[in-house]
């Protein structure tokens, strides 16, 4: 009995020893520098393209995240200060100056910016937040940083392997859940929505004509799926890693040229470098480490990271609890790495009915939203609900009396004929948003997508 029970205990110890051993900090420090640069470029790009105006100043109504309705949008001056502070924090992260304040500051500022309006949600913004949270608890400024230069006590050259593994796991979660999101008839059997997207890019230089070949969408769909499903494996095997990284660069470079996916290619190209040996940057930038290291490792770090990983694994999978087609009902769609898997558009008209029956109004979402917001909203039931309830509030505020709000939401998913997304007989003012399954969302159409 003793011999039998001793074996798993030994394995556990070996695993713990493996995870807790100290490895070079160089990889994480290089990630800090490069990721900080990506964040800086991304923030300056946002400022430079006038997106503060478009996304935060022009709208008069903002969609709230469930549980974060207290988040308010700053004044225009406040917004520019907010994003300027973000840029400053990103630069400080890159330089490794006042690193702890900068990482926490950037994380809070970035998260706040994203929480101001749901229509600006992007999967890779979520990834930025998760990676920033990991940086907050990482000593990535221990080398190649101005902090290490100015304060010797902050210098360090090693990091526990489990910290590096957590970063890798975060990247792996993104890829693997992105692969899972592609498992479905639309993507793997019909090549949708890639077929739709590629058809509209047939004038692209050099590769455009290839997009008109009938087989291209399906081939690319499968290639994308196989890439997402296996790239972590290839990056994890030393022998295949260099070629795999070239594939990473090729894949993200290509998709970056093909689609408007902003900083996502840069983020993934930098993040996947973490799969290389922890000391890989030392081959390019020699660094003299002290003869001994004295790792400082807070006791709370390992349990915290375990909890973090648990969230990463469970949160994106929650859509299975809702059943149905998540691309249609969207419950469990966010924070789930369902990256570029749907093309959705809808015609949404609110029918506002005075409760005393004296009048009916038809309200277009653009009466309250910018075109960009209206377009994002049109396929997302919780946002349609939010606006419906806001319309009721606004009617009361304007003295139009107590109203019931119904919606005709005709939505097309991946080129299908438009179908009703929401029960037109449900008064949206009587519905409460939450994480429970919404009965007021109608089932997805059973028909195949375009071309099916």
């Amino acid at each position, binding site marked *: 009995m003793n011999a039998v029970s001793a074996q798993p205990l030994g394995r556990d110890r070996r695993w713990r020893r493996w995870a807790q051993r100290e490895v070079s900090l160089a990889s994480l420090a290089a990630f800090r520098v490069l990721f900080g640069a990506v964040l800086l470029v991304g923030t300056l790009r946002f400022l430079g*393209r006038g*997106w503060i105006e*478009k*996304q935060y100043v022009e709208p008069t109504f903002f969609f709230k995240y469930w549980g974060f309705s207290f988040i308010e949008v700053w004044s225009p001056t406040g917004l520019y200060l907010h994003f300027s502070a973000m840029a400053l924090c990103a630069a400080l992260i890159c330089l490794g100056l006042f690193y702890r304040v900068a990482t926490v500051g950037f994380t809070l500022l970035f998260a706040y910016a994203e929480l101001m309006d749901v229509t*600006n949600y*992007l*999967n*890779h913004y979520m990834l930025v937040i998760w990676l920033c949270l990991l940086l907050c608890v990482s000593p990535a400024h221990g080398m190649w940083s101005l902090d290490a230069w100015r304060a010797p006590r902050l210098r360090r050259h090693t990091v526990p392997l489990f910290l590096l593994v957590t970063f890798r796991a975060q990247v792996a979660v993104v890829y693997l859940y992105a692969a899972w999101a592609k498992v479905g008839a639309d993507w793997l059997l019909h090549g949708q*929505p890639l077929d*739709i*997207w590629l*058809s*509209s*890019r*047939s*004038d692209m230089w050099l590769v455009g004509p290839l997009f008109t*070949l*009938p*087989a*291209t969408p*399906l*081939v690319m769909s499968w*290639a994308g799926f*196989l890439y997402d499903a296996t790239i972590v494996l*290839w990056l994890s095997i030393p022998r*295949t890693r260099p070629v*795999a990284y070239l*594939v990473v660069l090729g894949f993200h470079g290509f998709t970056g040229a093909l*689609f*408007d*996916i902003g900083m*996502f290619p840069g983020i993934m190209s930098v993040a996947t470098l973490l799969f290389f040996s922890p000391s890989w940057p030392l081959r390019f930038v020699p660094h003299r480490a002290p003869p001994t290291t004295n790792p400082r490792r807070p006791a709370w770090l390992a349990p915290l990271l375990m909890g973090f990983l648990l969230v990463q694994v469970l949160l994106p999978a929650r859509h299975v609890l809702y059943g149905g087609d998540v691309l249609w009902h969207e419950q469990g769609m966010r924070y789930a790495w369902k*990256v*570029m898997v749907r*093309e959705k*558009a*809808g*015609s949404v008209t609110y029918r506002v009915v005075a409760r005393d029956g004296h*009048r*009916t*109004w*038809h*309200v*277009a979402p653009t*009466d309250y939203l*910018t*075109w*960009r917001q209206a*377009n994002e909203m*049109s396929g997302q039931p919780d946002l349609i609900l939010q606006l419906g309830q806001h319309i009721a509030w606004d009617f009361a505020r304007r003295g139009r009396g107590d109203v019931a709000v119904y919606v005709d939401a*005709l939505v*097309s*998913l*991946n*080129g*299908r*004929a*438009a179908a009703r997304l929401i029960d037109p007989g449900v008064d949206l003012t009587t519905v409460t948003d939450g994480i429970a399954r919404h009965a007021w969302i109608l089932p997805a159409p059973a028909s195949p997508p*375009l*071309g099916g």
Partner: protein
Amino acid sequence: MKFSLLPLVAMVGVTAACPKSTGQEPEPEVAFSRSQLLENLADGVFVPTYQGFVDASGVLVDRARTYAAATGDARAAARADAQTAFLDAHAVWQRADLYQVGPAAPSYRPGGQNIRDEIYSFHDGVNPCAVDQQLVANEFGAAGYFDQRLIPTKGLDALEYVLFYDGADNQCPPPATINTSGAWAALTPAELGTRRERYAEALSQHLHTQAQRLVQAWSPEGDDFRKEFLARGETFSSERDALDAAFAALYYLELFTKDRKLSVPIGLHVDCAAAPCPEFAESLWSAASTRHIEQNLIAFRDAFSGNGGYGWSDALVAEGAEELATRMTSHLDAAIALVNAETRSVDELVRSDPEQAQRIYEAVKAVTDDLKSQFITVLNLSVPDEGAGDND
């Protein structure tokens, strides 16, 4: 990596060699391309319609000139001729109004020069009081006069007012200067008539000039917007951007025809305080609002069908969405037939037969519902003024 890439490469080779259909019958060659759609929209739909307005506004200038010169018994007939020429020209513009692409479009759109607002300003619209003030000022005979004037005093809607309204009163409130100063009251009926005729003559000429400017803007001899529309460059960096601009123009049917010309007068729109609101109908002076809606629908159908060349429906068919193309055509035809059979203007309809007005609204909505949903997803288009932003 060899193990992972080899099957992929093989799959690419094998599947690329396969025909599109796996069925027994080989599919016919699809000759359609999106660049052909753009080319035909420019050459077969937009520019011919603009040119049609040049011709119609030229006739209008002649008739308005004749009207201004007419005296005695000839005035009534000359006025009727000018009104007919106006309605003909306005009908053509109601089609061109749907083609606000490039120079006709607002300046915030690619290639936009605001020419449309010079020609027609519904729904922000004409201000008849401002026109009356110009009649009192009596300076509109000067060359380039309308180039310096604000939108509310010019355009087809202003012309409609001076051609169709012959009352002795004005549209300004009592406290307006032309009333308090006695300047309006000092105008004799004959002088007021003469000024209206001369205003119509001068404004017709301005509209004709703007129409020529629009055609010129598309022409190789002018700004050559056609070249910008069809080739990639500063204005449109991709074929998709140009298609988005043409698609944005189709939204007229939703934003103007459905939401402004019908929804507001019917009282479905919040801008109507107490339903119905016939006073918000289009073309109240000439009572041509129903005909305008018909022309809007016809213009949409021309762009959709291609008017003898490649149209949006061909793009849908090329993407495998024949059913959508057929359904939208059917909805368009039904809407046009419904409006064509209606002799009453919209303001009359909402007063006397609101159910019929609602039926027309629903018929137009049937078209725009498809436009805003499946049409967008099949062709991967961007909604108008969506603005830049990232996706993932």
